[in-house]
């Protein structure tokens, strides 16, 4: 039987008079790659940020990695990895220095860092390259490597393919499949239906704050 890692029941989120999420009920199981497909403004980012404990939930029940988001939305933050449109990297530092910074913050060993960089193909000459000098795809890989170092059990990715060329997108898809094989669960938002359907093991459609199975 599959293990539910993320469970939302009748979740409603409202900003002012606008409902960003309307009575959303979804379950994501361990090891899934789940795509949230929908147009801009559909509520995908709100859903991801709420699951990362960044936004308070107005109504409904939400449990992510055994943390009740209604009671304590801060507890889940150390367990999930949220990657938005930005990469969360320091431009003036090298890839290795960025990784080292994150490893010190989360208590990861040098071995963990080396492994994460190896998985993301950053262990060669790229490790000593400043982030500012990397391509968009390489930066994305570096950002994902920080999620591995942090041992994030649930990856929440907001438009991970944005800004990447075709080669970068294919590379990212391979990376996410590898992460899944390594035990991570991935939930990503996208408005590119074809690519999302190829990558995901399950697709959900988000429209006007309402989530439904595709």
């Amino acid at each position, binding site marked *: 039987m599959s293990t539910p890692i993320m469970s939302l029941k009748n979740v409603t989120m409202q900003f002012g008079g606008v409902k960003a999420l309307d009575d959303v009920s979804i379950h994501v199981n361990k090891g899934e790659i789940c795509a949230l497909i929908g147009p801009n403004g559909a509520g995908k980012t709100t859903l991801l940020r709420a699951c990362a404990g960044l936004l308070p939930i107005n109504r409904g029940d939400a449990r992510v990695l055994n943390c009740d988001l209604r009671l304590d939305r801060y507890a889940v933050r150390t367990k999930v990895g949220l990657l938005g449109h930005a990469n*969360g990297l320091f431009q003036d530092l090298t890839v290795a220095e960025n990784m080292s910074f994150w490893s010190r913050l*989360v208590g990861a060993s040098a071995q963990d860092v080396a492994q994460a960089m190896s998985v993301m193909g950053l262990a060669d000459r790229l490790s000593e390259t400043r982030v500012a000098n990397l391509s968009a795809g390489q930066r994305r890989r570096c950002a994902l490597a920080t999620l591995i170092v942090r041992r994030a059990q649930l990856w929440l990715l907001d438009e991970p393919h944005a800004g990447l060329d075709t080669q970068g997108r294919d590379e990212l898809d391979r990376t996410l499949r590898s992460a899944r094989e390594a035990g991570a669960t991935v939930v990503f938002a996208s408005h590119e239906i074809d690519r999302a359907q190829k990558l995901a093991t399950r697709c959900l459609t988000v429209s006007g704050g309402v989530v439904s199975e595709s």
Partner: protein
Amino acid sequence: MKSVTKSKVISAVLLKDLRIELRSRVLTNQVLPFAGLVLVMFAFALDNDDVLQRVAGGLVWLATLFSLFIIVQRSFAVDTTDGALDSLRVAGVDLSAVFFGKAIALAVKLVALDVVLVCGALLLYRVDLNLNGLVLLVTCVICATTGLGFVGTLYGGLTAGAKGRETLLPLLLLPVVAPVLIAATRATEAAFGSGGAQTSEGWAWIGLLTVFAAVFGVGGSLAFGPLIDE
């Protein structure tokens, strides 16, 4: 995974900020020349040795405050450019430790700046400095920069995501750092012996600087997390 203590987070953030500074050289290539120019321009504007010797302490600290705005904005720009500050928040990192790490890094940069500014004042304004004055001055610089580091980091975090932060930061910060400007100026004047001031007169002002640093150290560590989080 090993457990992460607050001191480890502080040292990681401190080293990261100093490493970025060493690499980008914003302090040495932009802030120091700017602060030096401020001292020179004041010398041109006042153009009177007696007046310059009398106001040397105030000019050093005014130049420090003007430079503080640039350093604080730069300190948070490196964290917000690619969403790194947001990532720290999302990752559940102890934000009060981030506050202390950034504040100490800011204070270290301000100390380096003040060493150059004091040397500039000694050269340009021809003020005197004896051993007792030097001890007072060093204490004053350490206490004042610590307080400025705390308050600069707190207000830098507050304005980091705000629209028009370039103008908002000086507007919010200047009134708050007025006590530092007054106390550090009086203590520096006592150290320089400006206007016949005695060195011993400066120590009372050090007390005020210490209280300011303590208040913003404690207050900042409590407020920084919620401010960044909201």
